[in-house]
């Protein structure tokens, strides 16, 4: 049964993509899209329930990707539900025309499918193709509004993304070359489980060189500091469902790919440990993004920088290494994707209701739209790392385990966290509280997905399910 579940998880999105490209009417398209996403979610839970299939030459289901496939399908489904009402409203007010939306749902499903492909692939090349296809599809969706800023954001995203992906591909070739003499030629030299097993025999210098290209390549997709430039504009100009999926899932998938290679690097004793580089890039992203938060005037660009900040924290955690920090990193990836997508759903509705994304025009939300204000407030409280939400647990583990090992790094980490915390509280109080401004039209927003995400984050803050903890702990041990 495991194989069929895995097949379904990959098959459904691509089949739906094909089908949806023929569907012209928006309403049926949206409903079909949500249904396909629901089916993919069910298949993913199937992966969870049935026993794990044997790792084939192309696909593998192991501790690391089970949790993230489930997360991807869940967030994909909830965002599909959210995008149905969001895009419908965009159609009403004329910001989007049916011709622009012609392939929207097809591209959405293709993106979900390629992400699942990247997660489940046992073959390094196939994973690269999954990430590449996901990037190209999101480039198209970011440019969907066809306004000047949207075009510019999409063009920037395309150029930087492609350069990143090309470098990542070169890294993949280098890994193949390193694996070739011990694993032979062809497919076996690209299969994860074999690479992991034979890792100690590889040539350390080649692995170091490969990791440099992989770090710069996939690092661009993760949005680490010097390579982040595409992320804020892509989030701000693209439709909000895409921002939610981009921030929630695509960054995770890129970081997941990086983790796959870090597993191989950790297994090879000769190779230079990637820790210091990842720690420096993580800290750079955290401090840079935290400082950029203060001067942002567009609410979605603000939360894009918050995504860069949280990806910085996660990379820092994996860079530090050790069971505690790695577990915290994995937990942080899951929590961040759930919280950030919930925030973007809230921000999407806020932007629609207030008619603008300018922060100074979004005031006194608590008075005009209480439920939306509650959702936004809980989301920001969660992303700021306040208990009882889950992000607090991971930040607690990262900071306390870092301080005991290297105090100065912990001080820098805490400085970054505080800077970001200050900016988040500043915006939270500015948007939710105070005398209301702007239109008061009640919104028929779909609150269920947003509050579902926040409920899961709240649950994770208090209690973590046993299987999830076991998977993360085994991976944390392997990550070194």
């Amino acid at each position, binding site marked *: 049964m495991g194989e069929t579940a895995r097949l379904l998880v990959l098959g459904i999105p691509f089949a739906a993509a094909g089908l949806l490209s023929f569907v012209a009417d928006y309403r049926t398209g949206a409903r079909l899209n949500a249904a396909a996403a629901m089916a993919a979610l069910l298949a993913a839970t199937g992966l969870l329930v049935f026993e794990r299939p044997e790792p084939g030459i192309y696909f593998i289901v192991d501790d690391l990707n089970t949790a993230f496939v489930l997360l991807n399908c869940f967030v994909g489904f909830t965002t599909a539900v959210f995008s149905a009402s969001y895009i419908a409203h965009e159609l009403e007010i004329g910001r989007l025309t049916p011709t622009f939306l012609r392939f929207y749902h097809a591209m959405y499903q293709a993106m979900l499918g390629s992400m699942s492909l990247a997660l489940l692939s046992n073959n390094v090349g196939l994973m690269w193709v999954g990430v590449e296809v996901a990037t190209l599809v999101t480039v198209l969706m970011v440019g969907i509004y066809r306004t000047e800023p949207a075009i510019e954001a999409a*063009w*920037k995203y395309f*150029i*930087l993304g492609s*350069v*990143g992906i090309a470098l990542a591909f070169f890294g993949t070739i280098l890994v193949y070359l390193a694996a070739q003499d011990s694993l032979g030629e062809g497919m076996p030299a690209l299969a994860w489980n074999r690479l992991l097993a034979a890792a100690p025999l590889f040539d350390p*210098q080649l692995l*170091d*060189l490969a990791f*440099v*290209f992989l770090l*710069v390549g996939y690092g*661009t997709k993760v949005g680490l500091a*010097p*390579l982040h*430039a595409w992320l*804020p504009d892509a989030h701000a100009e693209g439709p909000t469902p895409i921002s939610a999926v981009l921030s929630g899932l695509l960054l995770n998938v890129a970081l997941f790919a990086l983790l796959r290679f870090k597993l191989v690097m950790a297994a090879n004793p000769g190779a*230079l440990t990637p820790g210091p580089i990842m720690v420096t890039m993580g800290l750079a992203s955290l401090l840079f993004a935290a*400082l*950029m*938060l*203060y*001067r942002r005037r567009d609410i979605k660009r603000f939360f894009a920088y918050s995504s860069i900040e949280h990806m910085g924290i996660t990379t820092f955690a994996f860079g530090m290494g050790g069971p*505690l920090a790695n577990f915290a990193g994995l937990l942080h990836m899951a929590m961040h994707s759930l919280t950030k997508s919930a925030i973007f759903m809230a921000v999407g509705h806020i932007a629609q209701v207030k008619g603008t994304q300018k922060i100074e025009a979004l005031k006194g939300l*608590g008075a005009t739209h209480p439920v939306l204000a509650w959702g936004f407030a809980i989301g920001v*409280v969660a992303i*700021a790392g*306040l*208990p*009882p939400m889950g992000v*607090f647990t991971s930040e*607690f*583990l990262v*900071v*306390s*385990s*870092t*301080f*005991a*090992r290297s*105090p100065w790094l*912990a*001080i820098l980490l*805490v400085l970054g*966290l*505080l*800077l970001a*915390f*200050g900016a988040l*509280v*500043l915006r939270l*109080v500015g948007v939710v*509280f*105070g*005398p209301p401004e702007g239109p008061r039209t009640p919104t028929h927003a779909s609150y269920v997905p947003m509050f579902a995400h926040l409920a899961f984050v709240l649950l994770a803050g*208090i*209690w*973590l399910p*046993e299987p999830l*903890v076991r998977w993360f702990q085994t991976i944390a041990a392997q990550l070194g």
Partner: protein
Amino acid sequence: MSLLGTLLGLVVLLLALAVAALASRPGTLWPRIVYGGSLLVAVAIGITASLALATAAEPARLVLPIGLPWLGLHLRLDALSAFFLLLLGIGAAIASLFASGYGGSEPEPGRILPFYPGFLAAMAMVCLADDAFAFLFFWEVMSLLSFALVLVGHEEETSRDAARFYLVMAGFGTMALLLTMGLLAGPEGSYDFEAIRTRELDPGLATIAFLLAIVGAGSKAGLVPFHVWLPLAHPAAPSPVSALMSGVMTKVALYGLLRLAFDLIGDPLWWWGTLLVALGTGGAVLALVHALVERDAKRLLAWSTIENIGIVAAATGLALAFSAAGLALPAALAVTAALLHALNHTVFKTLLFCGAGAVLHATGTRDLEKLGGLIHRLPFTGAAVLVGSAAISALPPLNGFVSEWLLFQAILVSPDLPQATLRLVIPAAGALLALAAAMAAACFVRFYGIVFLGRPRSPEAAGAHEVDLLSRAGLLVPATLCLLLGVFPAPVIDLLGPVVTGLGLGSSLPEQGVGGWLSLQPIPERRASYDGLVLFSFLILAGAFTAALVHRLGGAGLRRGPIWDCGYPDPAPSTQYTAASMGQPIRRVMGPLLLAAEEHVVMPPPLDPSPARLDVRLSDRVMDGLYRPLTTAVLALADRLNPLQFQTIRRYLVLVFLVLVGLLVLTAAGR
């Protein structure tokens, strides 16, 4: 186990009340239900805690399956947490009782009711937490809920800024505590307090942990360099919540400091105590000078909270210095003084904030310059606040004096200290504490005199009306408690015995009640004793005797007439002394040094009828010296980085290129 179980049950009850209150609507009975419920639970917490203290049983332990997956949530009820839970019970009971009357007419119940019981529950759980994660979890939830409570009146700009500044400072404090816990738990992350207690920490790391504990707990309690947010945030909350924040939350923060300093970080170095004593006493005097020039009633009380926290911190520092020098009995005396002052402060500060709330409710304003003559219209509040003001000014029959007296005894018992600097700091601390006690009296004479005595300075004050029955009870209970604690201090100090021994100081004060009339004789051979009951009865007897004698000799008649005022009475209320003029003499003495006060007088030339102008510029040295430059620095840095958002694609590619080439060179060089 049963006591800890009941406490946990009560906390769950509070949470249920909080969740239920989410459905509250204006004009319904919800405020009464929530505040009444909180009152009952608070009383129950107080009783359970006092039972735990009285029986002085072995610390009860409990592990819940939630929290960190491999650790669970550890809870522990020992003497120290029982005492602070008792303190929480008393403070919360008073505030809830007052709120049930005063809060009945809450315009926006939805904003305050869900968070009020949650806030109490979070504070209770902080006292029970027995592992680093649980402690910081509930510590931060406490900050978050009080942040929401401060935002109840979020229409005004000031309370929004206050709330924001408060939460950022709370975040800063939590980060400091997180680093302390990280240090104590070590790299392998044994966060359970039991493990931390057994873990040996070398002095260097212990010092860093202690300094971080002072920063973390100090920023929540309002210790001086981190106090700046307190006079902004506490007044912005509704009065019962301000009473809770000032009366109870600051004590929970001090509980955190005591737990870390005595229990977890192990044997202190001698200079740790001096640092805390210096911060505490210096802070007390600075806070009082601010209180003396303050115009807003609730901000004045917030500054006075900072002063009292300074005193408690000084007493704790003294205890640390003594236990480092190996003097067990003086250390026990100092800790008892600290704990007793914490309890006393909770009682009279809650009373004063409820009084200020009653005044705000009656007149609609907190500005001292607009009040006056309220003793005629609010007789009951006037009497209660008088008792509160007398108690906070450490006047004999009341409780404020007892803890002040114990602290002075602790200072005087310490001439034989080995370290030289300690022998300089302790007398200086004694001098500053004496100065603080006197200035507190001056501050509260000004507060009570301007608000309640004299003639009303505004129509609102003239039209004020007394609060309803329940709020009056909320004022009566703490007033009588102040008197009882002042007259019968001995049983309270016996109750503190197990707490002091629990802190590992080797010994606690000998049995107090034995000396006949429940007199307080902390150190027998010094024969210095204070007998509250005898003095109180002596006072009453002498007073009655004088009154009887005078009335018999001179008769009891009296006549009402116009105000004498040296022959030219002026009906205008503006001729009275205002709050600013009352504080002017002390501001002239202390102002230039502590407040950077500049007075600028503009006198018109002779024969020019235009009015003269006197403007006084005061500034908060700590705010201007530390916090404003910090915020401007951050914003300046943000501005310098901002252009990075508006670069061309080519320049971003250059960044990617540089990173790639840099890393390649690094790996090439790395080999």
